[in-house]
């Protein structure tokens, strides 16, 4: 053992069992702080649970309210009784006839089909949507048997041949269901189903441009010095096995440096992205793309003789992978749920520190400005979930918005504090435009 070692060993042995008196109220203060931490955790946990419960309640409420899954709408069969025998259009030649007479008809209703010239002959018109319609003939006898189940509307149409009067007979819902059931039993149901599927089938690909703004920021003001930087890059959870854990995890908030006021703020993240989606099964699509995210943080320490301000910019590029499920349509409005994840890596970072010290004793002022390029060591992984709406505006274009949140995993990027390191859950609002093709 050399002299150096002897010196160290001597000192170590001198202090090995050394104990110093602790403040008499030490435990009481620790207990008070622990109680404060517990209360804040409970509040935060309740908030998260409340948010999650509200989201689930809204989703479930939507499902129950709209009684999902909704059956294909079949409530639009219309029975038309032709009162003027002059008109003899055939079902199969309807399109041509309409084209021929279209100019003359001032008030033609294209949902009305006069299949036969004979009076009392009626036509069942069944329309699934505003776009698609089919015409089917049926016997009028059923209607005549149950006149009390009908609602009658009369209207007239003027054309070159004179005035045509039509009596529209609209059955009520029970009658509609019964007639459709009979219709289906007759083996023609596939026509309905086919039309329904054709109507609801979505385009296989979607290209989207979107912007995302975080709804969560982080602000902290304490009486102890704070910095965005840390001299160590060791996880707090690993500190049992590592020599020096991250300084960033140190709870400064109880430090009692009386003359120091420190503020730290992480702004809401802002993102822009382009994504492409592919429908994998009906209503379910997988989405990926490229997302740019900007993070900004600042810290400020102010005391009687020292002021320091730090700013930090990080630019990230990320690749998301999401599953989107269109769970509800209300008219043209669609609701979807989204779940997925993203991996992000910073592509550029900058740290700037401006410090000014004033020494009254020496009557001197010292100013220091440091600006450095910085980067995070590890990629940032996150999982996200949300619910959103989309609305078709023109052609294949849809406007959409989504509210949700993301959980950011511990990426062991302790060297520089960001909202990802200080806030594990960040809520966000997405909006964009989507093109279906």
């Amino acid at each position, binding site marked *: 053992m*050399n*002299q*150096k070692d*002897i*010196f*160290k060993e*001597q*000192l*170590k042995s*001198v*202090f090995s069992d*050394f*104990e*110093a*008196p*602790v*403040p008499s109220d*030490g*435990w009481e*203060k*620790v*207990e008070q*702080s*622990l109680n404060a*931490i*517990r209360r804040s955790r409970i509040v935060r946990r309740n908030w998260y649970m409340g948010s999650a419960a509200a989201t689930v309640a809204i989703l479930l409420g939507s499902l129950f309210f709209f009684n999902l899954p909704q059956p294909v709408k079949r409530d639009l069969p219309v029975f038309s009784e032709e009162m003027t025998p002059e008109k003899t259009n055939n079902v199969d030649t309807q399109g041509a006839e309409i084209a021929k007479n279209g100019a003359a008809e001032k008030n033609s209703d294209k949902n009305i089909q006069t299949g036969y010239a004979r009076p009392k002959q009626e036509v069942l018109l069944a329309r699934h949507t505003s776009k698609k319609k089919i015409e089917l003939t049926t016997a009028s006898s059923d209607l005549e048997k149950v006149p009390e189940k009908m609602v009658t509307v009369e209207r007239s149409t003027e054309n070159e041949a004179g005035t045509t009067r039509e009596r529209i007979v609209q059955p009520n819902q029970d009658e509609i269901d019964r007639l459709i059931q009979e219709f289906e039993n007759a083996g023609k149901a596939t026509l309905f189903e086919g039309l329904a599927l054709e109507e609801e089938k979505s385009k296989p690909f979607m290209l989207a441009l979107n912007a995302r703004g975080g709804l969560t920021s982080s602000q902290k003001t304490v009486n102890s*010095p704070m*910095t965005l930087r840390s*001299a*160590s890059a060791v996880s*707090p*959870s*690993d*500190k*049992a*096995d590592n*020599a*020096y*854990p991250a*300084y960033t*995890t*140190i*709870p*400064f908030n*109880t*430090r*009692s*440096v009386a003359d120091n006021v420190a503020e730290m703020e992480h702004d809401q993240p802002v993102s822009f992205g382009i994504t492409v989606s592919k429908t994998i099964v009906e209503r379910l699509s997988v989405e990926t793309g490229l997302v740019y995210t900007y993070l900004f943080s600042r810290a400020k320490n102010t*005391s009687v*003789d*020292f002021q*320091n301000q730090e700013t930090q910019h990080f630019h990230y590029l990320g690749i998301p992978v999401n599953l989107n499920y269109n769970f509800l349509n209300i008219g043209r409005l669609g609701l979807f749920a989204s779940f997925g994840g993203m991996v992000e890596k910073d592509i550029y970072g900058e740290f700037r520190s401006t*410090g000014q*010290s004033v*020494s009254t004793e*020496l009557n*001197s002022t*010292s100013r*220091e400005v440091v600006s450095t390029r910085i980067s995070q060591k590890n990629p940032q992984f996150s999982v996200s979930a949300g619910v959103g709406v989309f609305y078709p505006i023109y052609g294949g274009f849809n406007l959409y918005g989504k509210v949700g949140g993301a959980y950011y995993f511990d990426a062991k990027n302790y060297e520089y504090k960001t909202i990802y390191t200080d806030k594990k859950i960040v809520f966000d609002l997405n909006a964009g435009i989507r093109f279906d093709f």
Partner: protein
Amino acid sequence: MIAACKKQNRNAQKALYELYAPKMMAVCLRYCQDNETARDVLHDGFLQVFTQIGSYSGKGSFEGWLRKIFVNLALENYRQEKKKFHFLNDYGKENSELFDVPEDDCLEVGDIPRQELLDIIRKMPEGYRTVFNLVVFEDIPHKEIAAMLGITENASRSQYFRAKTFLQKKVQSMLKKKYI
């Protein structure tokens, strides 16, 4: 007791505090120049212990695990102090000539009362004291210390050498007084 502390049992936490606080206070006093800061570090350290005790795996010495927490808090305090007063001391200056000086004779510190040794250590300039503590009591190589404190390895060696010289002079002075 540790298991109970992981369940946030207050009685267990209090017992653990009473058991280890005096030892950890000694660590804090070695790193911090004034008693007020040492008390703050002790307080913050135990908060960190109780909030993160779940991460203690049971492998290795629990006291060693505790000690690392307090040392790191003290270092964080040092970093902040360094930011404030960097212009007042010569921290970070490298003087290669210092490294050519041979290691000093073995210091006979055993004859000096512990409290007086502690007072000498606490009177060291901030940079000296921090590096000195890390080298002597934590057995950390200069290369790691340099990375931890954001200084060069040579600066770390320089600080340590100066700390030893500081201690040597004080000890010799005390011994002279003692034996005269």
